[in-house]
């Protein structure tokens, strides 16, 4: 404990404490980036640009919401990217039966993968990282088999509309992400499911002894995460106007985990920060956009993102060891 930033605590200048950073750092960083861009970046505060940024970040937000729940239970779900690919692969197969059945099949696939993940974690007792690694590999394999390894163009106007339409000037994708964020926040803070999830993440042994249905809740959490990932897969496919199971959602698990961690949700479980997660995803998106717009290569953006992740994890570590 002695190595904890004594400078911060007794420093002449009152620097924000790690606890403050973990709680509010992500909001401050988003605000700083927005201000910076408003002043120094041309055409940043234009409708078109904001729209592009939000549309691009929406699928990440949707996946990250599910990921935040899983991480809140001291778990992790590596299979989300593969679930997106699986959903994408299923869409063209069932669009012949109508848009609704295709959507249901895609989301059901997410639920099934989530149930398998949850069962492996809660009932079989595997480490989440190992359990979901199996479907990370297998899910994409299955998606490629279903799609015959091919990219398929999507012509269904209803599905394409999900990617391009607006409601009251807001892109549908963004609207869905926003509504889901509110919904997930409500679930986390206001339902028995949400509170149990947090308690299980905080102290699984105590939750079990308090009679909580630990296994059921854990399975439920992974199912929600799977369904959200499948939905993200559907929306991304609609934007691409093609089902591309070989590349859709690759590295999405890492983007989602990053958003959650940067948003201040500890990897050790026991807390879920929904707004923080949304802002975490936004922060990474804005950071990249900012650097790209100032003619720095993408590789620089990646390194900047790495720094943010390290800061987020460092801040969380300090907090815990106290």
């Amino acid at each position: 404990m002695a190595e904890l930033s004594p400078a911060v605590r007794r420093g002449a200048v009152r620097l924000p404490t790690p606890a403050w950073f973990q709680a509010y750092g992500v909001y401050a960083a988003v605000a700083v980036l927005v201000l910076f861009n408003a002043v120094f970046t041309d055409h940043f505060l234009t409708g078109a640009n904001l729209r592009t940024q939000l549309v691009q970040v929406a699928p990440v937000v949707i996946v990250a919401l599910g990921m935040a729940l899983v991480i809140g239970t001291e778990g992790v779900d590596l299979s989300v990217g593969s679930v997106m690919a699986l959903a994408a692969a299923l869409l063209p197969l069932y669009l012949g039966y109508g848009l609704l059945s295709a959507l249901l099949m895609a989301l059901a696939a997410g639920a099934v993968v989530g149930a398998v993940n949850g069962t492996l974690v809660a009932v079989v007792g595997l480490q989440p990282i190992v359990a979901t690694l199996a479907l990370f590999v297998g899910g994409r394999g299955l998606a490629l088999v279903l799609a015959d390894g091919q990219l398929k163009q999507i012509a269904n106007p209803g599905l394409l509309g999900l990617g391009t339409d607006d409601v009251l000037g807001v892109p549908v994708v963004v609207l869905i992400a926003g509504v889901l964020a509110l919904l997930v926040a409500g679930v986390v803070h206001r339902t028995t499911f949400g509170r149990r999830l947090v308690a299980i993440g905080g102290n699984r042994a105590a939750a079990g002894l308090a009679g909580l249905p630990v296994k059921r809740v854990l399975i439920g959490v992974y199912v929600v995460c799977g369904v959200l990932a499948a939905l993200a897969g559907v929306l991304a496919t609609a934007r691409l106007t093609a089902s591309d199971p070989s590349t859709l959602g690759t590295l999405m698990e890492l983007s989602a985990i990053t958003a959650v961690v940067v948003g201040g949700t500890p990897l050790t479980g026991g807390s879920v920060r929904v707004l923080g997660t949304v802002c975490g995803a936004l922060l990474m998106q804005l950071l990249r956009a900012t650097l790209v717009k100032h003619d720095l290569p993408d590789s620089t953006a990646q390194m900047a993102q790495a720094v943010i992740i390290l800061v987020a994890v460092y801040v969380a570590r300090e907090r815990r060891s106290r």
Partner: protein
Amino acid sequence: MAPPDAAPAAPPPGPDEGPTAPAVLEAVGIGKRFPGVVALDDVSLTLRRGEIHALVGENGAGKSTLIKVLTGVHRPDTGEVRLDGRPVAFARPSDAQHAGVTTIYQEVNLVPLMSVARNIFLGREPRNRLGLIDFPRMHREAAALLAGFGVTADVRHPLGSLGVGTRQMVALARAVSVRAGVVVMDEPTSALEPREVETLFRVIGDLHDRGISVLYVSHRLEELYRICDRVTVLRDGRLVHTGDLADLDRMQLVAMMLGREVSEVRRHGRTGFGEDHHPDREAVLTASGLTRRHVLDDVSLELRPGEVLGLAGLLGSGRSETAKALAGALPLDSGSVTVAGRRLGRPSPAAAIRAGVSLLPEDRKAEGIVAGLSVRENIVLAAMPRLSRAGVVSRARQDRVVQVFMKRLRIKASGPEQKVGELSGGNQQKVLLARWLCLEPKVLLLDEPTRGIDVGAKAEVQALVDELAQEGLAVLLISSDIEELVEGADRLVVLRGGAVAGELTGERVGEGELLEVLAAHAPAAGSGPDDEEVRHDG
């Protein structure tokens, strides 16, 4: 490798050499503190050549810390460790090992995936002319070594394929073959079958004959009296007694471990100022034949409304496990729990809670509180479904319950939204009590409810237990504090080795009587719980 080659080379002393034998390993005035706790306070221990020295004490006595100081895991804050009269400072366990001090932990610290032979010779494998491991020779020597311990396992098999007992023998064989002068054994028999225990004792006898000293930590009195020459008793981090074991009878030894004066206890008899309750009604909870291998052996007991039943026993006797079994939190091999006439089907904490059984677990931090959540959320954790509508929690209902219990139990917090992790131990315990009481249970199982909480909170908790019993609750009270147990309980069930060793009722609920049962010989000079008969006194 290291200096103390002299140790094993010395002539093997006869078993009766006893007190005149020179000291091999000494701890002198050891003090060790951890944040918030003094683990050891001026503790000294002398281990003489060739003796089997028992180290005993209840939970928190400082046994483990002392072992860790002696074997280089911890460094003492004050005092020093001496080996063959010279001060030594082991920086890490391997230093101690090189110097001839080997520890055999319950969970043997060897490499399960490597062969038995490789484990024995790890780090000092015999080499052939090419500098490679000479496997035939290694296997031959390992087999010969193990044969001396009565182990006939194939030394080429991975260690992990052996039973716990055999693995322990392998660890011992390794210790002996590195020419250890001192072997520290921490609860070596806790996972052994009676037959394996016999082999272990034979090996220990063998070590003794070779002049190797053994520091033997165990809470099984039978074992201590069978094999140990001398004993050191620790309590609350302090040295209570050290001397020949033969000079102490079991009663005196137990009294020392628990911090009671035998003469005083015998004179006073029963102190009891706690109210006596009237358990004349029918049992609300009946447990019969609770059995789990190595843990519980045919434990049966009854709890009646309005009584406080004390569950007594030394460390490792199966008290906490019994409570957990009653609360559906310990999988059983056989046995049943019946609550209010209904047998609990597949035991689970949820089923037990539904039936009206609540358990306040022993380890408050690990199994009780959710430190990151608020006082309110911790209190309503188990009652959440009752305080919500269609899966949506009702803050108003929660707040009402929380307010009532924070007031009734006088929980000191800045408010219901303060994080439980920030509260004092006593207040955390009250939060947990509130969690269970708001379920309105029929049976309350309290495992060490006053451990680690301040005096004021302790008195409040004790008064609350009394009050709850008067209101008709059936309470099971587990405590290592024998005074608390005798004063708080109307009836005592004593456990030993996972089985019921006796029961004290009415006038016989007293410290003296309890000590007698605790110190009594197990019926069969016993190695395992298997031989013990269920005996009901009084």
